[in-house]
């Protein structure tokens, strides 16, 4: 039996071991790798960044805001949570007004968790001034709220998760409806954007973006092409790209430029101990993804080489 035949007969458990190592090691021992940012992610970043107040503008005065809608439960958290964290970090770092909302009871704790995780790093950020958590609204209210926000957000949502009347919060100054709350990001493990595209987008012209799991991304591409979706983050990869953009531009309060992205300096973030784990989670995850994908491809190749050699031999023998 030569090595290829042995490889052919290799016990599955060795493969499992390789998989375990290939995924656990990059997660525990991070290493640097390059993150390529792609067009849809960059576009989304730039739209959100355009909501930031100017250098001599008070954050409260800014008449732009972003709505994050959490439409997923814990099972898709590995992919979607890093995105949410990255966007919230962007908003808090650049004083962008941000709202959060969910129609799914199981998403409410995830929403709280995301806000609080990012807030820890930004002591100046205050609820009601920089962000408002609209909280969980029952599914039956979904349509009335989506449509109602086209006229008046304070009236449609009424009270936030902390039980405060929205109209009494300083953040709502200058924010009336979709004209101001100009982008809705829907994070979902199934059909992202759905009702928002149909109602908020086509009736009120609101921009709708989606954060989806990698599996979903293919189904969402047509919407991206027709412009019904303004931007999309797909899976861990989209999250990793956004993480990088936030780090290169938002945290340093810089304008977006493609040139800066090419600087290899920014690819050393993963091993940088100053950056908390939660803000590079997606990039570390992508390391594991990359290793895993390559590993699987190598498995396919080795498997096939062994297969062909064995077949060739059989032919010769017989």
């Amino acid at each position: 039996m030569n090595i290829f035949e042995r490889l052919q007969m290799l016990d599955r458990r060795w493969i499992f071991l390789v998989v375990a190592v290939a995924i656990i090691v990059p997660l525990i021992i991070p290493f640097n790798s390059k993150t390529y940012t792609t067009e849809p992610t960059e576009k989304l970043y730039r739209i959100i960044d355009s909501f930031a107040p100017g250098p001599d503008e008070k954050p409260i005065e800014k008449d732009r805001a972003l709505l994050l809608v959490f439409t997923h439960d814990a099972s898709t958290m590995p992919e979607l949570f890093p995105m949410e964290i990255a966007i919230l970090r962007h908003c808090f770092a650049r004083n962008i007004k941000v709202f959060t909302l969910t129609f799914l009871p199981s998403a409410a704790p995830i929403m709280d968790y995301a806000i609080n995780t990012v807030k820890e790093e930004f002591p100046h950020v205050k609820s009601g001034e920089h962000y408002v958590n609209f909280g969980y609204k029952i599914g039956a209210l979904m349509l009335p709220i989506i449509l109602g926000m086209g006229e008046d957000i304070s009236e449609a949502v009424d009270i936030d998760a902390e039980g405060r009347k929205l109209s009494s919060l300083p953040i709502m100054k200058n924010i009336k409806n979709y004209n101001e709350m100009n982008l809705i990001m829907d994070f979902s493990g199934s059909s992202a954007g759905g009702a928002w595209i149909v109602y908020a987008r086509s009736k009120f012209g609101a921009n709708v973006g989606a954060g989806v799991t990698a599996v979903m991304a293919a189904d969402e591409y047509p919407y991206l092409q027709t412009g019904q979706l303004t931007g999309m983050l797909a899976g861990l990869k989209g999250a990793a790209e956004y993480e990088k953009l936030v780090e290169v531009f938002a945290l340093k309060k810089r304008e977006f430029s493609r040139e800066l992205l090419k600087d290899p300096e920014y690819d050393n973030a993963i091993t940088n101990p100053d950056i908390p784990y939660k803000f590079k989670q997606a990039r570390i995850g992508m390391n594991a993804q990359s290793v895993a994908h390559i590993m699987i491809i190598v498995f396919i190749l080795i498997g096939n080489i062994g297969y062909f050699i064995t077949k060739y031999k059989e032919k010769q023998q017989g």
Partner: protein
Amino acid sequence: MKRSIPLAIVITLGFLFVGYVFIPHKISTDFYEWYMEWIKAMSPFGVVLGIMSIVMTHSARIQHKVPNWQYSIVTLIAMFFTAYAGFAWGTQEGTPFMWLFKNVQMPMGATMFALLAFYIASASYKAFRARSAEATVLLLAAIIVMLGQVPVGVSMFGEGINDITHWILNVPNLASKRGIALGVGLGMVATSLRILLGIERTYLGGGE
């Protein structure tokens, strides 16, 4: 009586529901609401079947002392304890019932699901063989799409790999999904029709 009446129920209701699809009138929606109310009233009893089946299977295993019968005790105890916890302390957040759900059921479900990562790898190694031209095509498409999703792929083959991935997803993949879906759609119509006409009676089981 044993077979013909249930069959008559299915056929009658079936045709009424065909009508329901075409008739938007209030009478038709009232009929649907009536039906749903009845179905809902029947629904809780179906669960009893599952519970009875579990109790019967596992107690039989214990009785006959089949190999691994001891574990059936775990199942029965776990089942009765969880149910008891739900009834005794309620099902809200913070009760032992929710604790069991969050710390026993959820992590095990998630882990079972995560096993897929291992199996995908072993399937790639063991079963993904270029046995024929078709198998080779499948394999190549998979490799390209996999590469297109990670930064390594881009640094190895350039941005073009993304475009190829999108093309594969938007053209051959779209055609394949559409073609299969059309076939499946027709098949569903045919099977539903067979049930409606009483040709297909599998659901009634065998016997008289």
